[in-house]
């Protein structure tokens, strides 16, 4: 399916009982775009991303990822996406190499492919010397880069990052965003949630979520002009204050 749209949502909702975690959100993400999902904790970002990844069923509305419906095409979606959650999701009691081999394996990569990818990844991340150390021994910044690399093993065209830089120092965060840019330059679509407003500046377009709804969507520059502010931080505080 050749389209310029990588992810598309229309009136997507998820209710937990009476609580509307995600309330009729609609947006399109173009291929190769870095699309930011901003919002405070509990705004519904993670719920939205989980629906798009096929981890949660939507209550109402529809969305497509890589051209497949999240209601009927989750099996195909899973082959086309990478996902990195806010929790560090590698096995701490496995070595760096064993983690890569495992994630390669569950994506159905062959042994040779895994061996090649492992070598490539370890040199990219400068982790060759650490490949046989337990993952728990790595500093958090490296763990997160490793987790990101693991989610890219099968070369997915779309990648979802759910607060990938939570709890990481500013320098590691900048390094991490450098990698995100590289990924986007390779033509991959990056869908990223964050509550760091400075990171919003790095995105091509951002949507601001508040209480389950998207209350603003646009390019960082466009939004700054619209609200006559100089930083995303100011815009965010301004908009949330209005709502």
């Amino acid at each position, binding site marked *: 399916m050749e389209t310029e749209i990588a992810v598309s949502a229309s009136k997507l909702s998820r209710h937990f009982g009476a609580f509307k975690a995600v309330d009729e959100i609609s947006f399109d993400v173009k291929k190769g775009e870095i699309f930011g999902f901003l919002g405070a904790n509990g705004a519904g970002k993670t719920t939205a991303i989980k629906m798009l*990844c*096929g*981890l*949660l*069923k939507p209550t109402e509305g529809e969305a497509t990822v890589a051209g497949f419906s999240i209601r009927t095409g989750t*099996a195909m979606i*899973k*082959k086309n*996406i990478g*996902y*990195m*959650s806010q*929790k*560090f*999701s*590698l*096995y*701490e*009691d*496995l070595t760096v190499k*064993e983690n890569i*081999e*495992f*994630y*390669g*394996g*569950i*994506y*159905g990569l*062959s042994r040779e492919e895994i061996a090649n990818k492992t070598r490539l990844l370890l040199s990219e991340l400068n982790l060759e010397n650490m490949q046989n150390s337990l993952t728990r021994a790595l500093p958090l910044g490296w763990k997160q880069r490793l987790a990101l690399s693991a*989610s890219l093993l099968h070369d997915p065209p779309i990648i979802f990052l759910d607060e990938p830089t939570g709890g990481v120092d500013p320098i590691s965060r900048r390094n991490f965003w450098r990698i995100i840019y590289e990924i986007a330059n390779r033509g991959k679509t990056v869908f990223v949630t964050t509550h760091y407003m400075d990171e919003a500046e790095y995105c091509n377009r951002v949507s601001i979520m508040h209480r389950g709804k998207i209350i603003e969507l646009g390019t960082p520059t466009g939004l700054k002009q619209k609200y006559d502010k100089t930083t995303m931080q100011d815009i965010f505080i301004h908009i949330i204050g209005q709502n």
Partner: protein
Amino acid sequence: MKLRRIISIIIKEYTHIFRDWRSLLIIILMPVLMIILYGYAITLDMKNLTFAVIDDAKTPESRELIRGFTESRFFILKYTDIKRNEIESLFKKRYIQMALVIPGDFSESLVSNRITKVQLIVDAADSNVGTFINNYSNRVAQLFNEKLNNRSPGILGLEPRILFNPDMKSANFFVPGLVALILLLICSLLTSITITREKETGTLEQILVSPVNPMEIVVGKVIPYITLGFFNGIIIIIFARLLFKVPINGSLALIAVLSLIYIFVALSFGLMISSVAKTQQIAMLATLMATVLPTIMLSGFIFPVASMPLPLQYISKAVPATYFLIIIRGIMLKGIGLAELWQHAAALSGIGMLMLSMAIIRFKVTLE
């Protein structure tokens, strides 16, 4: 189902198991410890029953009667030459379980063809002990009579032939049952935490966004633990044989095959709990509750199913150990084979498949 993906999960699970050698050691040593503890503690064999004698006769005949008790390995004569009014306090202090009062005219009475009465006082607070003492004393009296009268004609004598457990050792009954209890407990505990642990660490989410389906996850997790459970089973049976000299009259290969089915049931049960439970503590607690209690109370482990009230008998049919107990006791003690046991083996397989399917279905539900 894709083999490559299942193999990846299997390798990963094995790595977890062998990396954490402390847990592995516990997994291996726990059954040994359990079989030693339970094996020695759970016994209905009567031993070292203490008793007192007030022998007012003090004749060769009265000593002959007392010897009838002291010769056996069950009774220890603790008090002689005590006063009658001391007996009650000895019972209350639990110093004795039985007292024998032989009247002064014992020997005269025996030859005079009157009915001779000897008083037997029994502590029946533990009804099993009471019944045992009563039965054994009757047997002593019977032997005494026979010797005295050189077996007078017309007296009925039963010639018992005791099958399958001729020494009537309760270990022969309990130790195979322990195999059932320990295997179930260990194996279901093993798997009950594997999925919940991944829920807690967040790795499950990472697996679930991959193309792996629940079936592959469950199968990939069961296979490594089957080997571990099987290894545990072997250890338990070796210890049962060495420590308690429990006979193995039937085929070892059949024990192995049917144990595998039983292990599969236990692992599937653990996975089922794992797919529901939110935390590892809940998973472990639920597993303990759901395995130990029904297995001890309702499977025939101690109390025969046939003497339970009817509703409980129906519940016992849902307890996997009920079938495995019949199987393992049958093979070890009676030496019977698949011809007699196939129905129980089939029931066990059925329960296993049901639980595994439930684990997979429950698993799907929790995702969505």
